[in-house]
């Protein structure tokens, strides 16, 4: 079966430093892929290449087998690749609806916005995801951490995402909100969305991901099925940068 996303030989350098060095990785429909590694291992850079924040120096990206060119975040979004950054990248001085539609406002003739329609749509999406906000017209700066996360998730899902990238999705959340995010990831995966979870902490994503990819010093150490490994083995991959040794392999 053709993978939903395929990254082939991606290279990205910053002033001579190989932030991402010849990495190939694939993601299937409905798969939850955990991307692990220390800070500076190249996870975020790799994901930003896919999200269009900066283009790769070399390498190919294929979506459902078709090579695509991703030069901007707009390109990525057009292809259905949505990213929830660790910072959430929300505009604090705007309300939830404005944030949800930022850059993709519903407009009538002459570019004037249809605010009522956007509010209605936002309400529906939040309802579908069982996310609750006290008021859609409150500025984001007055929302709690979990509520902000809800806005960021709704924004990523609303426009029919096929690939969802979540950078440290639960790092800033309490236990209850973490469970909510876990349930949501499972639900989105059932809907066929490919999900990439990025973390430097194995415990955050071990139970959520069906497959784990580990990076170290810009290179891919390897990818393993979560069912085949223990947390300690993955930890060894992160630290030592070597695949676990198997007697039968």
């Amino acid at each position, binding site marked *: 079966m053709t993978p939903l996303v395929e990254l082939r030989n991606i290279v990205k350098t910053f002033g001579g430093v190989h932030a991402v060095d010849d990495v190939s990785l694939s993601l299937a429909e409905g798969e939850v892929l955990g991307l692990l590694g220390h800070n500076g291992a190249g996870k975020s850079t790799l994901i930003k290449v896919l999200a269009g924040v900066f283009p790769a120096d070399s390498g190919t990206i294929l979506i459902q087998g078709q090579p695509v060119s991703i030069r901007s*975040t707009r390109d990525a979004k057009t292809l259905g690749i949505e990213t929830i950054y660790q910072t959430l990248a929300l505009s604090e*001085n*705007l309300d939830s609806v404005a944030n949800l539609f930022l850059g993709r406002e519903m*407009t009538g003739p002459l570019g004037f916005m249809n605010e009522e329609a956007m509010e*209605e749509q936002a309400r529906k999406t939040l309802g579908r995801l069982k996310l609750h906000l006290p008021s859609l017209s409150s500025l984001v700066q007055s929302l709690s951490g979990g509520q902000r996360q809800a806005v960021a998730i709704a924004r990523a899902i609303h426009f029919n995402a096929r690939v969802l990238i979540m950078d440290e999705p639960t790092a800033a959340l309490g236990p209850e909100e973490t469970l909510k995010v876990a349930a949501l990831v499972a639900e989105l995966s059932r809907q066929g969305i490919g999900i990439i979870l990025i973390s430097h902490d194995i415990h955050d994503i071990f139970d959520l991901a069906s497959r784990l990819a580990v990076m170290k010093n810009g290179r891919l150490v390897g990818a393993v099925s979560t069912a085949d490994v223990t947390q300690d083995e993955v930890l060894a991959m992160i630290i030592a940068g070597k695949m676990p040794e198997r007697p039968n392999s």
Partner: protein
Amino acid sequence: MPTIASRARILSDRVAQAAGLDVRLLGMLLVMAVIWLVLHTATGGNFLTPRNLFNLSLQVAVVGIMTCGMVLVIVSRHIDLSVGSQIGFIGVFGALLQNSILPIDGSSTWWIATLAMLSTGALIGLGQGLLIAYAGIPSFVVTLGGLLFFRNAAFYINSGVTVAPLNKTFQLLGGGLDGTIGAFWSWTVCALAVLSVAAMVWRSRQRRSRYGMNSRSIVMDVLLIKVWSAFIIGFTAIMNAYQQPKTNIPMGIPIPVLILIGVTIIMSAIARKHRFGRHVFATGGSSESAELAGIDTRKLTVLVFVLMGLLCGLASIVITARLNAGASVTGTMTELNVIAAAVIGGTSLAGGIGTVYGAIVGALIMQSLESGMILMGVATPLQRMVLAVVLIVAVWIDMAYRKARKS
């Protein structure tokens, strides 16, 4: 443990929000009302007269037009120090065009000059915007350069000699003796304005109910229409109550004031209802988030400065037409009045916050104080000193207000 005061504040905010009112704007209007009453008393009853209010509205037009653009510039976390020099340069250029190049009495002269002045403003904005957005030079530096460049260019292109007179039709745009629309058209505009307010309130109700949202109570909407109508009718009546000297022919609304009202409505709509305005606010709040959301913040910055330049062209047309001359010194220090008006009107220099109508009220407050003090015979240096203090105090109060609301 919330104090009674903070509870009262929260309650009053809720009431105001439910009514769809801007608490801050109401506060500013209240401040302005107090200033007007004080000035009226201090000038021995000379302030709140049709004559003075007519002149006040005329005087506020030039700064007001530019302030509308400055709000977006400041909201996007930039500054434009060149606006005063721009109106000086564009004025001399437009005057030369009418006086030396085109036939001064030609029937097309006025609109060719008008278009040329608007385009010059837009081009200046384009140049400065490109330097800021794509060359990455801070707007403070680029527009400080613009301030020096265009002020001296205004001197250079005609060796500092004032260009006069100008085309007769063009002069009307400045709101001189004939530059008003008279009683009949003033009342016509007034009637149309009242009808538009009613139509807009009605349309908003319909839209909200179509999407199944709660509307304001009908009592509130009717009250809103009544207040606006009273304001519009009152304003028109005052403009008509001022009569041409030695006659009893009402002046009516001056053309520059009509231009200012038009610009305010359009710019407010752009800031609040248009995708472009939304992106400007997002960029001012966090340009990184805006970029991650797919907004081309560079292009946006260029457009903001083009719009600012266009409005400088318009303001230059008004002031040049009113003076009936293109003088190299026109607009000196005006950039500071424009920035002060925006800031007094609640635009945050940190970016991301501000309203066009607030800035217009800010411009009105500044102009009221200035013309009130002139009526009182306060010396010019002292006037400026008072305005400086007002600016700082206004921003201080605004910051305290925002802080109190956040906590």
